[in-house]
């Protein structure tokens, strides 16, 4: 009896621990103190700017399944601040950053936000790459009087305008517009098989894409949502191929999922095209696909495109690192935006003043990283309005065009 009890105890213990670890891996909750915010400033290169620093707090998923998307924008933004600080900073003051790794967990995000918003030196929040993290924060932004600028993606509930919320990321509504517009022009009878990791945002994209293409001849013939921790997409791709998809549209996928999707498309002898809507536009993704049937939306130029003068200039100003992600360029451009708004805001800049400056400052894109003008207004808080489309020329990704995906009223257009 004792033996049986011991065995059962062990099994229950192990099962509980296994389940807890599994939930942890899914971002099911963590109060780990290692998630507490830490300062990672611009210590080595801030000698040229020696005043009291402007502090930007980053809350994003710097590790875990979506860490591959959220880390490059933060690295790019920090690198720009480093470069700027080495040339005198803003108004004689350096810009430093603090970062909290939310690991996809909403509670960690909220805790970090409470901590950062309570620190008087923090002037704005950046990151917040998942809508599940951003949505609960939207009402808190106004009550704490701090602006949040999300990247590399946005929440549709905060757009086109929320007083304290700014998007410098890929807006899922824009993704839908871009995809529908691209496919209706490229293949008016396209049958889309949509696959993405499971999140409210990707489900929303799939649903809205179905509505957006209705009546155009393009149709959505299948939708597959993978748990974020899943690494195998064989069944999903098999189902989409059997559903008659001629285009596989990848909404968003972790790196292992992305690889599995491409490999299983080959396994199933898929003869159609693949369009990466979000997150599949890196050079490594194109190399993996190695086919001209692979297309991807890329919101900013990649640091690898050093044939472009602006990109070459950015890369030359990066201290030490060798960036290769277009999300890094997005972060670099965001750094420019923040720095220019701080310049407008002045040396005694407040949180409210910084928010106002984001709306009133006229931004430029001196490095030419985006597909069209960047910046905000008092009616539109989407920071960029267009996206590039890239294809494969046999050896490298090449720009095939651009789409004004976000250029609709009140963000422009007609």
């Amino acid at each position: 009896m004792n033996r049986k009890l011991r065995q059962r105890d062990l099994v229950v213990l192990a099962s509980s621990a296994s389940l807890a670890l599994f939930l942890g891996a899914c971002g099911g909750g963590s109060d780990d103190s290692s998630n507490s915010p830490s300062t990672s400033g611009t210590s080595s290169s801030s000698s040229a700017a020696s005043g009291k620093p402007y502090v930007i707090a980053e809350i994003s998923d710097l590790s875990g399944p979506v860490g591959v998307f959220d880390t490059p924008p933060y690295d790019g933004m920090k690198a720009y601040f480093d470069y700027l600080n080495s040339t005198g900073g803003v108004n004689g003051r350096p810009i430093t950053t603090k970062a909290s790794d939310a690991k996809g967990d909403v509670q960690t995000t909220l805790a970090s936000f409470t901590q950062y918003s309570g620190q008087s030196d923090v002037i704005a929040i950046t990151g917040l790459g998942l809508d599940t993290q951003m949505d609960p924060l939207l009402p808190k932004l106004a009550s704490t009087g701090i602006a949040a600028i999300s990247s590399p993606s946005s929440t549709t509930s905060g757009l086109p305008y929320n007083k304290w919320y700014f998007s410098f990321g890929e807006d899922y509504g824009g993704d839908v517009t871009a995809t529908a517009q691209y496919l209706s022009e490229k293949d008016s009878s396209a049958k889309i098989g949509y696959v993405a990791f499971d999140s409210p945002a990707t489900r929303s994209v799939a649903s809205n894409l179905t509505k957006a293409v209705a009546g155009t001849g393009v149709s959505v013939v299948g939708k597959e949502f993978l748990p974020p921790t899943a690494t195998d997409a064989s069944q999903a791709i098999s189902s989409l191929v059997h559903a008659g998809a001629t285009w596989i549209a990848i909404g968003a996928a972790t790196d292992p999922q992305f690889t599995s999707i491409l490999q299983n498309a080959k396994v199933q002898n898929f003869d159609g095209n693949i369009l990466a809507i979000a997150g599949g536009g890196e050079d490594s993704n194109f190399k993996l696909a190695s086919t001209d049937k692979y297309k991807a939306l890329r919101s900013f130029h990649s640091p690898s495109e050093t044939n472009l003068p602006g990109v070459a200039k950015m890369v030359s100003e990066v201290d030490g690192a060798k960036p290769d992600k277009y999300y890094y360029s997005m972060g670099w451009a965001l750094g420019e935006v923040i720095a220019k708004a701080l310049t407008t805001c002045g040396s005694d800049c407040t949180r409210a003043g910084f928010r106002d400056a984001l709306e009133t400052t006229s931004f430029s894109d001196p490095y030419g990283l985006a597909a069209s003008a960047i910046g905000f207004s008092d009616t539109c808080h989407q920071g960029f309005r267009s996206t590039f489309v890239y294809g494969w020329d046999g050896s490298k990704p090449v720009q095939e065009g651009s789409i004004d995906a976000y250029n609709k009223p009140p963000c422009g257009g007609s």
Partner: protein
Amino acid sequence: MGTLIGTVAQGVALGAIYSLVAVGFVIIYKATGVFNFAHGQFMVLGAYFAYVSISWVGLPFAAGIAVTLVITGAVGLVVYAALIRPLLGEAIFAPVMITIGLSIVLDSIISITTKGNTYLLPTPVPVHGVSIPGTTTRVSNYSLIAIVVAAVFFVLIASFFRWSGTGRDMRAAAENPHLASYAGVSLGFIFSVAWALAAVAAAIAGIAQASSTLISPDIGSVALRAFPAALLGGLDSVMGAALGGVLIGIIEMLGSQYVGSDTRDVFPYVVLLVALMVRPYGLLGSRQVDRI
């Protein structure tokens, strides 16, 4: 019908990897009564070691894999000697907690060392697959290789336990460690072999998994899906791990096909809960398992 057969075939392919992971849980549990929650990290280590051996060192694929298995097995030995052996005889929770802590430490080491970078494992076989007869489903070459490797591994491991002297000693030690010890079986040696074997199994699973996706820290999450497989098959049954892995793989794929791909995380744990309630010792496990 064709869809059903095709889905089952995909489930068997997935289950082959689960089986390789699950057997690692079983070998260690059978020998030492410890659940190794760092098993997934051994998978990740194995995959990264393989990449380094083949891509950086430049070893031929087969040699790189062989070196990887030896190194990962050695890591298993070191973990046992440094962390588990000092706790033998202590409360069962102690070594279990050690393995949970080890999983977090290894995660951090892997993250710091690799900076989260992911790599493609260069394989000598093209990814294209073959059609399942009677269906329109195709299974990748990597999946077929994983099935064959798992089958060979289980034949070897079963033969090892049945016919080799060390294997017999391990079975004797698992059955009654005190009696085995009195008969001259070195328990320390047996436990060391168990940890090394389990690490090798994890490395094989890690390489198989990485071949069809990427080498990334995320592949360790497969271990959390394979735990229900070990439990379903029976925590002290090597062949139960094979059966449990395949069944979990099939159940997961059927759920994904007929309920929705977003539900596939659910099914392994539904099976775990049912197994706990109905048959806690598993399909092929023995009713009485004692810690040694």
